[in-house]
C-alpha cells in the first residue's frame, strides 16, 4: 500500500494517486489531520499544490500537521518518501530535506516542460536524461554555500535542470536525504505520450517497485 497525503489546498493529489495505480500498485489517501502507523505503508507520497494557500511560507503550516509527525517517524524508520513540488517544500520545512524553496528569480509563476538530468544514485531506474513539466512560483532551491558543499559531498543532489528556469542554487531540481526524495518537477504529469511525454512512468516504476 502506498500512502498519498492530502492537506487543505493540495491539488495534485489525484494525479499522484493515479500514477500509483498506473504502475499496478494500490494507493490510499492519508488525511492531514490523521496520524498513522509508520509501518503501515511501503512508501509515502506528498503531492503538489498549495497547502494552506502558501500562507506564512510555502509548506510551513502543512509541516506541522499531525500526518507529518507520522510521516517523519516512518521516514526515520526507513520508509521511502517522495515529495513533489509543494510536497518538496513541505519536506524542507519539516527538516527531512536540507534547504528551502524561495520565489522564482524572475518573480513569475513558471509553467513549462524542462529537461533534467538524474545525477546521483537513486531508486529511479529510468533514463539519465528526462523531461517533466514544472508549475511553480516558489521553485528556487536555496542552500548556503557551506550546506551546498555538504550535500554535494554526500551525493544528495540527484536531479538538476539543464537550463535553470528559476534561479535554483547549482541548478538543483531535486535533493535527497536517506530514503526521502524531493523534486520540483511533476513526473505524475508525464505518464504517457498524450500528456506531452512519458518519462514520468519510469519514475514511479523505479521509486515504488
Amino acid at each position, binding site marked *: 500500500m502506498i500512502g498519498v497525503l492530502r492537506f487543505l489546498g493540495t491539488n495534485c493529489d489525484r494525479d499522484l494517486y493515479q500514477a500509483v495505480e498506473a504502475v499496478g500498485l494500490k494507493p490510499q489517501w492519508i488525511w492531514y489531520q490523521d496520524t498513522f502507523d509508520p509501518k503501515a505503508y511501503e512508501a509515502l507520497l506528498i503531492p503538489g499544490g498549495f497547502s*494552506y*494557500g502558501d*500562507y*506564512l511560507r510555502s509548506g510551513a*503550516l502543512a509541516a*506541522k*500537521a*499531525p500526518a507529518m509527525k507520522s510521516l517523519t517517524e516512518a521516514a526515520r524508520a526507513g520508509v521511502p518518501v517522495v515529495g513533489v513540488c509543494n510536497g518538496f517544500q513541505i519536506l524542507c520545512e519539516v527538516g527531512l530535506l536540507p534547504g528551502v524553496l524561495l520565489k522564482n528569480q524572475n518573480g513569475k509563476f513558471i509553467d513549462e516542460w524542462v529537461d533534467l538530468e538524474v545525477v546521483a544514485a537513486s531508486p529511479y531506474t529510468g533514463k539519465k536524461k528526462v523531461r517533466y513539466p514544472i508549475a511553480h512560483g516558489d521553485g528556487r532551491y536555496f542552500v548556503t554555500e557551506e550546506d551546498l558543499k555538504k550535500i554535494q559531498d554526500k551525493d544528495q543532489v540527484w536531479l538538476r535542470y539543464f537550463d535553470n528556469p528559476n534561479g535554483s542554487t547549482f541548478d538543483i531540481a531535486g535533493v535527497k536525504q536517506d530514503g526521502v526524495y524531493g523534486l520540483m518537477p511533476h513526473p505524475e504529469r508525464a505518464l504517457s505520450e498524450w500528456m506531452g511525454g512519458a518519462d514520468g512512468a519510469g519514475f514511479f516504476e523505479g521509486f515504488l517497485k
Partner: protein
Amino acid sequence: MSQKIVVGVKVLPRPEVLDTQGRAVAATLKEGGLSLSECRVGKYIEVSVEAKDASQALEQVRQMAEYVLYNPLVENFELEVKS
C-alpha cells in the same frame, strides 16, 4: 546635509477585516499546543532614503506607504526609524 536613513513600514490587516492567513497560522499554533488568543499576519517593508533628518525621512516613506505600500480599505500601517 542629507544622510541615509532606514525607515520600517509595518503593514497589518485592519482589526475588523477577517485575516484568513492569521487564522490559519493561529490554528496551527494551537494544534501544536501553544496558547494564544489571536494572531494576525502582515508584512514588514524597509526603505532606505536620503533625508536631512528623521522627520523628513518619515514623511518621504509616509508618501510611499500611501502611494502603494498599504491599502487603506483593508490595512493599517505604522512607520519607525530604524537607523
